[in-house]
């Protein structure tokens, strides 16, 4: 499956979805006003991945995200949760947060309570 890789901008994250090299990550900022348009290719890639999935370790290392993005993040996590339980693959989330950013740590904890995927919080 073709990897989906985009560079980050001042208000959108860098995304790597690469099942060939097993690298899956979101990093930087997610502040777009129109989150649906921005995340459409991501959702499509993940839906396709879900048809023939493999074990995945997804790293989420966001500096900032807006509330609209939090809705999309939950959609992504729920999709992966479903793939994991239906297809029996191991999917784990690595939630990275700035050691000074308690709000980001708490945000990860909130997401982890909404899905059954294993979460590991790591500070940087």
């Amino acid at each position: 499956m073709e990897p989906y890789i985009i560079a980050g901008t001042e208000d959108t994250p860098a995304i790597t979805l690469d099942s060939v090299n097993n690298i899956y990550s979101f990093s930087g900022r997610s502040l777009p006003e129109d989150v649906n348009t921005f995340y459409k290719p991501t959702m499509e890639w993940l839906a396709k991945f879900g048809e023939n999935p493999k074990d995945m370790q997804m790293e989420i290392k966001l500096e900032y995200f807006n509330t609209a993005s939090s809705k999309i993040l939950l959609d992504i996590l729920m999709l992966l949760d479903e793939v994991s339980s239906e297809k029996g693959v191991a999917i784990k989330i690595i939630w990275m947060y700035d050691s000074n950013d308690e709000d980001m740590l708490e945000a990860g904890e909130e997401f982890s309570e909404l899905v059954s995927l294993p979460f590991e919080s790591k500070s940087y």
Partner: protein
Amino acid sequence: MSKSNLNFVKAIGTKMNEHKFLLTYKGDISQDIIKGILALTEKKLELDGTEISLKKKVFNIMVECLQNISHHGQAHENQSKYGLIMIGRDQNDFAIYSSNLITNESVNDIKNKIETVNHASKDELSEMYKEILLSNRLSEKGTAGLGLIDIAKKSGNKLDYHFESFNDNLSYFVLRTLVKPSN
């Protein structure tokens, strides 16, 4: 231009100093303007030597305030959608002020939302956030209905607000959010 005509510049500067405004903007709120204001916010907080946890809170609150104005702010007649945003600093405390026009029908709804978050504990805010995150779909505008809860969570203080009638259809909405060091 005569010297007296330029006095207002000094007067505005003095007022800004008195109130310790780090940043003020009034005018059209478009996507590009928002990006510009956020870049400026970040630079100003950085130059100001703001500690990272506070800087992140102020920045996040600015994002939600600006996107609230962009999504819900109303324009008066043919004028462009207007918004006012200011960051004030007093010692280590920050106050983020935002103001825009809203429809009169939405006054009660916004007021109720703010009163609800103001009466919620930190844990209750977190529960409300998760509940809405699970139940709400993104609106066509791309809004999640989480803005005020997120602002209250990041602030950790009661939100101050004020409504004032503008005309038969519109009202001014002013929101003040405080950010204080935790210790």
